[in-house]
């Protein structure tokens, strides 16, 4: 896509801005929840559970930073002052792809671990 404006209607721009705002809310709440849970784990427990929680929080931070970046790029698309709509839209789509791709991969890994755990428990 070249660097140019896209003739979105005013309603579409409002929708994109609203989607970007909700994307920011989702990423902010997820980051806050992840960090809060890690802090609680750090203060109350030791050992493997803390390491597990650190990995989980790290993944949450990475994934939600992608969503944050996508939301900021989409907010620029909806802005009247920014002229590089197509470039920002491409950045937004790339970051959204990374966000959804990471979610699917992590779900696959989680299911894999779940099945493995089940087999280890059931098969002596």
């Amino acid at each position: 896509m070249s660097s140019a404006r896209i003739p979105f209607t005013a309603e579409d721009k409002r929708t994109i801005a609203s989607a970007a705002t909700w994307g920011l809310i989702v990423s902010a709440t997820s980051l806050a929840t992840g960090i809060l849970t890690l802090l609680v784990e750090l203060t109350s427990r030791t050992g493997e559970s803390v390491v597990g929680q650190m990995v989980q929080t790290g993944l949450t931070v990475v994934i939600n930073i992608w969503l944050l970046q996508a939301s900021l790029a989409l907010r620029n698309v909806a802005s009247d002052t920014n002229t590089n709509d197509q470039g920002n839209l491409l950045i937004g789509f790339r970051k959204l792809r990374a966000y959804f791709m990471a979610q699917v991969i992590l779900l696959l890994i989680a299911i894999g671990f779940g099945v493995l755990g089940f087999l280890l428990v059931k098969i002596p």
Partner: protein
Amino acid sequence: MSLVVDTAQRSRSTQLSVRGAGILGPLMEQNPFAPPTSAPPAAEAGLVFSAEGVEVVSSLAKWMRGLSVFFYILIGLGGLGSCGLAATIGFDSGMSVVVLVGFLVGLAVLIAATIYLREAASGFERGVYSDDEMTLGAGFRSLRIYLIITGVLGILSMVATLYKHLG
């Protein structure tokens, strides 16, 4: 942007003049200032995505649909779980009914989120393949609703975490 809009307006005015030419044909033929009777190609008007843009959005749509498949599996398991819950705890006490209704509401919310996620994926893909910003806008509308649902769930999750650890 101005180029795109001007081209679209020119296309529309040309189409109108072509329609009018049927009635005023003889007059138009004599008018040296009459607009051309052939419309410019449709590709000139509107949004054109590069091959890279199409590839990114196509891939994004695939991953969004992949996530929705997981949600559908989760919904199926949740449905089975709610049937099991109903069979186990029954409808005798008010609490069991509340738990079951809560479970079903959760499932309904997940179904709505999944439907909107798939709609957003389809909207983005169709918008990019047809170079149409209107369809792309429809994709963003669905994405917004999906993000609102996940946002509200995220806020509730954060409040629950705060309540669990600090309350």
